[in-house]
């Protein structure tokens, strides 16, 4: 079994009309055994920037701690929040530092940039950025997520519509993957508010 499939994970980020949504499953497992059903995979870096980390859970937590540290330092020095594009470059650089002994994580970054323009990107475990205009996916269920998102996505969705779409895509995909599931965690972010919702899906 691959090290990326040790804990199990599923992550999506989707772009809407002046908003974005980022969603994850809630399972933490050790191979076939489920350890936790409320595991947090998506972290808030600041009000307009969210980071999801899939892959090995210990590396995800360590990486998050390092990135939050770097962002706080940035805030002290620059007296402002990091732009999503800048944060993505930071994550990429930190991952590539460990090129020959990498963090076994695949991050998904979603944020609102200048003029409230939504920004999403993902990268592989050594920092190769993939910018997308519609959606990005990561985790053990990634193939299923690609299929579901490709079929369900429409451009310029309103926040409520975007929430429905990303939730349906997440739940249908994790139902076909034994290592992810046990519900969902969805954040829908607009320039004015952040709405966090928990989804109940098949609890297996």
């Amino acid at each position: 079994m691959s090290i990326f499939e040790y804990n199990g994970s599923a992550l999506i980020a989707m772009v809407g009309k002046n908003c974005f949504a980022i969603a994850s499953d809630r399972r933490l497992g050790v191979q076939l055994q489920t350890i936790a059903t409320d595991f947090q995979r998506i972290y808030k870096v600041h009000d307009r920037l969210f980071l999801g980390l899939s892959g090995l859970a210990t590396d995800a937590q360590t990486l998050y701690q390092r990135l939050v540290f770097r962002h706080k330092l940035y805030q002290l020095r620059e007296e402002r929040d990091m732009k999503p594009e800048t944060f993505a470059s930071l994550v990429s650089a930190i991952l590539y530092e460990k090129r020959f002994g990498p963090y076994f994580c695949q991050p998904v970054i979603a944020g609102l940039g200048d003029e409230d323009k939504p920004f999403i990107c993902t990268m592989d475990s050594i920092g190769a950025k993939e910018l997308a205009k519609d959606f990005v996916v990561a985790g053990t269920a990634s193939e299923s997520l690609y299929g579901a998102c490709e079929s369900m996505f429409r451009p310029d969705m309103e926040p409520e519509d975007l929430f429905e779409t990303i939730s349906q895509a997440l739940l249908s995909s994790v139902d076909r993957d034994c290592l992810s599931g046990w519900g969902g965690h969805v954040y829908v972010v607009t320039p004015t508010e952040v709405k966090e919702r928990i989804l109940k899906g098949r609890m297996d």
Partner: protein
Amino acid sequence: MTKQQANWSPYDNNGGSCVAIAGADYCVIAADTRMSSGYNILTREYSKICKLADKAVMASSGFQADVNALQKQLAAKHLTYQHQHNKQMSCPAMAQLLSNTLYYKRFFPYYAFNVLGGLDSEGKGCVFTYDAVGSYERVGYSSQGSGSTLIMPFLDNQLKSPSPLLLPAQDAVTPLSESEAVDLVKTVFASATERDIYTGDKLEIVVLNAGGIHREYMELRKD
């Protein structure tokens, strides 16, 4: 001294995806027409769909040489059946035959991932899905092949088949109309073509209903 490993495999994977959906009085079977080997495209116009009997149509992805051998075997056995029983095989009967034929080669399998679609003796749509060694199940819809992991979750979402474990047993066939099911198949293949490199070129759709067999084609992305 480490054990010597074979550097030649009798199998190859020619890629592609197949889908079948069962309706109240119809069955839709579809597959793309791309045949590949590794990163090369061998042809853009290869049919993966084979009519086994009047009411049973099979779509197979995997190793097409094995698929052809399998189709030949089934055609021969079907001909014998027709001589002996003076009628065509029904779809459930063909389903069992396919399972037995696949298991016969349990220790050197046909590298073929099949979906069998057709009409049962009541005229209702039926779809059977198989693994490479003949394990099969009657379902409301299924997909196999390189794009199946991309296609299945969306079919689950749109067709919401009830669990086969429920009592009393609930009908697995979809309440969608024939044209809605065909549209769903077209959508699903367009999405799979975007993200799966082995799926594309053209989509072949076969619809079986009381009126007979109807075939149509749709262009897909060629990259």
